[in-house]
């Protein structure tokens, strides 16, 4: 699909390619034939398809921890599918002003950098972090049991070792038993039992990526534009869970949040 507008004005041409619609020709061959000045990779499938095409500036979006994974690639930059951890911490602290201890489980190989940033941000606040390392999904329920009585809120990071269908179910059950609210990164988990999510806004992430592309096409080196986290946070609250746990969320946060009442 050909399109124009947005990036660099109405004369710029944007060709949209949906990989699942492509037939007859390999995606890499198709991309080379198009001879683009820049590729926008939306999602991991797209990025894996284009990342090895040499000499092509690539801007990614809808990728978890892109900044960490592609920091050494000179032709790749973009926007990671995670709200800046410092901003998330700020929202959690404001939403639960009486909660001083925030719990985290994380695999250092996956979320070490994010946790380091959270610890740094927390050091300037009246908040203590109880962060416990886990190295395999099997260890998640036991690790959660160890921290749940030491925390006021559990913050579920988008860590592939910690978050899986089984681990999420057990964490929600254990959290509910202990009366601890769970803050997640996706609205999907609010429907499953988390009290609140701090998620991304895909449209706004696209805008961020568009501004990066504009700079690159104006002549700025890709390597000089570092990968960024999403700047806009979308808050969703499960009011039924809040009632069940007897938790009153700060009104200002509640005012800007989307409400969900059901639990699946």
């Amino acid at each position, binding site marked *: 699909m050909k399109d124009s507008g947005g990036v660099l004005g109405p004369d710029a041409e944007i060709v*949209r390619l949906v990989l*699942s619609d492509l037939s007859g020709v390999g*995606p890499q061959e198709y991309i080379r034939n198009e*001879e683009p*000045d820049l590729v926008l990779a*939306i999602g991991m499938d797209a990025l894996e398809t*284009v990342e090895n095409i040499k000499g092509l500036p690539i801007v990614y979006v809808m990728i978890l921890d892109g900044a960490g994974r592609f920091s050494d690639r000179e032709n790749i930059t973009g926007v990671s599918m995670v709200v800046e951890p410092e901003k998330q911490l700020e929202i959690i602290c404001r939403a639960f002003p009486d909660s001083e201890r925030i719990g985290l489980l994380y695999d250092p190989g996956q979320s070490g950098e994010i946790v380091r940033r959270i610890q740094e941000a927390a050091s300037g606040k009246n908040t203590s972090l109880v962060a416990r390392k886990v190295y395999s999904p099997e260890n998640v329920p036991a690790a959660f049991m160890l921290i749940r009585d030491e925390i006021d809120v559990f913050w579920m990071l988008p860590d592939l070792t910690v978050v899986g269908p089984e681990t999420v179910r057990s964490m929600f059950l254990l959290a509910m038993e202990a009366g601890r609210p769970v803050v997640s990164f996706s609205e999907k988990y609010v429907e499953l039992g988390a009290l609140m999510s701090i998620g991304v806004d895909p449209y706004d992430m696209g*805008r961020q990526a*568009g501004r990066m592309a*504009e700079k690159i096409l104006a002549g700025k080196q890709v390597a000089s534009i570092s990968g960024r986290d999403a700047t806009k946070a979308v808050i969703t609250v499960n009011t039924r869970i809040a009632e069940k746990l007897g938790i009153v969320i700060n009104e200002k946060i509640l005012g800007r949040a989307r409400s969900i009442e059901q639990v699946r």
Partner: protein
Amino acid sequence: MYLTLSSFGNGIKREAWNLKNILPECIMLWAARALLTAALLMFFSAQGAVAAHKILAVQGMEARPYTQAYEGFRGGAGT
């Protein structure tokens, strides 16, 4: 013969005198034309560079968040 050579010499002198008078104007005209040509070339090449940018937006599948990100990208620059 003398008269012919003399008039030829005078003709050369007159032409040289004329040339001496108009040369600075010619140089100024050539310079102005060269400057104008360079400015026009720069203008049109800059226009061409903007128009020539081609962006390929690749997404794995049709999914609402991906499409929203694409729409945001289209509106992203200059904001």
